[in-house]
């Protein structure tokens, strides 16, 4: 195990390779919890804990994990909806934390977000047309005379009928609303999109339609995507590689090829096992997770997963395992997974 300390946590990109579309470096986000008579900070939620990864241009990175593990917070820190507590986010080499708010507003047209809840992601008092027009005009995506044509193109692209231009959000179904949200994100011709559980609020039958739409758009427009989901099946289907998060920490990063054969971290394996449709062969291998999810206010000192891990050792209680590079873009944070 002597080589473990030599292995770096986040491997910097090789000098000759072009800068990755997105590079996240040691990102930390704590939410203070206030209380008491003086409204002082009484605790901190460790929503994202020292997270590093990168996404190459045109790639789709999945983020998977249980509810509350910090997936949305990670996405919102990357797009600067939250100010990170520490750490850096580079978009094609630009550190978006160090630029002026004016420059940030400019750079925002290159990254957009698709939100989780179609019922709250559209302004109830604005028509589809108004929603799209507003964004197109702000970034002057097309000359003033061509705005209408651009709106039509966008609506066709996401599969909305042109008659729906003047409709308000409450006149649409959930799937249609999500299409409007996608159209809004695409309106500024972004290169990088964060999709925060874009289908989890939709009916299963509609989920597939919206996912297929996203797949087509990704191919057509060459988008780089950070795709957040709690559903491994969706991630496997949609992404090039994935991050498995638990209590704000990355447990494992791996390419989405033959996940069952390659997944090494006990938490990833547990997630796979709890998804019987996906994993008919390995069903009996791991039992359902037992034990409590620790409070995010008071994470365990050692490995975050220690309270529920079936193969934990004494060491796991004391020391947090580093995220070690296993080659081929595979990184694992577990004392019990040995380097080959």
């Amino acid at each position, binding site marked *: 195990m002597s080589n473990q300390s030599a292995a770096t946590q986040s491997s910097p990109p090789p000098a000759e390779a072009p800068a990755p579309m997105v590079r996240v470096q040691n990102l930390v986000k704590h939410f203070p919890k206030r209380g008491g008579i003086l409204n002082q900070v009484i605790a901190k939620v460790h929503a994202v804990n020292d997270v590093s990864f990168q996404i190459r241009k045109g790639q789709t990175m999945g983020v998977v994990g249980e509810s509350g593990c910090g997936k949305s917070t990670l996405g919102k820190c990357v797009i600067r909806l939250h100010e990170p507590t520490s750490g850096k986010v580079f978009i094609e080499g630009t550190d978006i934390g160090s630029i002026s708010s004016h420059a940030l507003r400019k750079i925002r047209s290159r990254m957009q977000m698709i939100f989780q809840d179609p019922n709250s992601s559209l302004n109830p008092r604005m028509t589809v047309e108004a929603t799209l027009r507003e*964004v197109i005009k702000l970034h002057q995506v097309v000359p003033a005379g061509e705005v209408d044509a651009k709106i039509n193109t966008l609506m066709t692209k996401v599969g909305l009928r042109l008659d729906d231009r003047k409709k308000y959000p409450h006149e649409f179904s959930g799937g249609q609303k999500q299409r409007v949200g996608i159209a809004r994100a695409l309106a500024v011709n972004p290169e990088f999109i964060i999709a925060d559980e874009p289908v989890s609020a939709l009916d299963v039958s509609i989920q597939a339609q919206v996912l297929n739409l996203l797949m087509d758009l990704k191919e057509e427009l060459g988008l780089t995507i950070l795709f957040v989901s709690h559903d491994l099946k969706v991630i496997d289907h949609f992404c090039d590689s994935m991050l498995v998060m638990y209590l704000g920490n990355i447990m494992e990063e791996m390419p989405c090829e033959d996940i069952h054969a390659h997944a090494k971290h006990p938490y990833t394996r547990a997630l796979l096992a709890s998804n019987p449709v996906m994993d008919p062969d390995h069903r009996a291998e791991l039992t359902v997770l037992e034990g409590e999810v620790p409070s995010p206010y008071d994470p365990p000192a050692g490995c975050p997963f220690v309270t529920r891990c079936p193969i934990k050792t004494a060491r796991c209680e004391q020391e947090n395992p580093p995220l070690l590079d296993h080659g081929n873009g595979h990184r694992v944070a577990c004392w019990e997974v040995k380097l080959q």
Partner: protein
Amino acid sequence: MSMTDRFFKTREFRKLFRNKSAVIAMLVIAAYLFTALFVMCGGITRETCDTVVGQNKMPGFFIQQTPEQRYENATSKFLPMVQRALSRADQTAALADVRLGQERVVNKSAAQLQAIIDRAIELKNELNQSEDLDADSARLPQLKALEDQVAMLKAPLTGWSRLMQNASLVLGTDAQGRSIFLRGLYSIKIAIQIGLVTAAFCVLLGALLGAAAGYFGGWVDHGIVWVYTTFSSIPNLVLLVVLSYAFTDSEVKDTLLPVYIAFGATFWIGTCRVIRGETLKLKRMEYIQAAQTAGFSPFYILVRHVIPNTAHLMLINFSLLLIGAIKSEVILSFLGFGVKGQPSWGIMIRDAGNNGDVVSGFFWEIGTATALMFALVLAFNILSDALQDAFDPKHV
């Protein structure tokens, strides 16, 4: 289709219009607004309200005047005025000046008028022989004849003035002989005017400050909360007393300005609180975050995405503030600090009390003022409740 058009066709508005009592309330309010507009366009002027139309008179339609009052009415006002005019050198000019309210002298020659007056005085003297008109009911026909003589001096009113004359008497007169009906109607304009100006100003100010506080947070929030906590600790009654002393010698002392300042300074606070709370909620909505990721400026997001989504609360608050302002105006005018120099329900109620009318059973002045105010406030209360049910079932 325009934005407002859509706004009024929403589910909420359909729900509002299905509510029968709300629709009735809206009709009542519409009638009040129409009256206020009528007064504002000069239908009833301040002068009309101050004109003496007769002796202290009860509402004409169900309370009879005593013979003494009828005698007094016939002899004391119009008769002596015409008589005096005839005794002048320039009779015609003097006669043209004889006016009692809407009434004028009939277009007759001086000799004819003199004949009528002589006959009237004759009747008057006959009646004077007895102190007690009632005791001898045979004298009542004579009283009637006297009244007829006086009526012959008057040109019959026609058209609009006749209508106004009849209307002005319908609810009787106050202690000074001014029409209670007209004063009551004029007060509608005062109430609506104060209500609308106060509510519009306070809702706009409260919404803007509340939304800014909620949306920007930090020191903006602290500052605005501090200001409204401070202002809410000033009772607006005290503020108005101070203002009315401060303006004593200025030219605005008879205008509504002190009232507006006092109400404007304190009434926005409730709205500000509510809108601030709503904004804190809206701020977490994903469409606000979407606007942020799109790169819109905070001010744009506030004006375009936050404030329009508090419109329903602004509407409800407008209705509530209107009631509040109208009620406060009445109370302040009653105490003598509100409206000055023109009629107001508060002043009518005070006058009624001051003259001891109420105690002796002359209820129509206080009754008119109270009934008009009651109907308006009740209608607005019903409307506010209906608005709240339709737009804000949770009663934030």
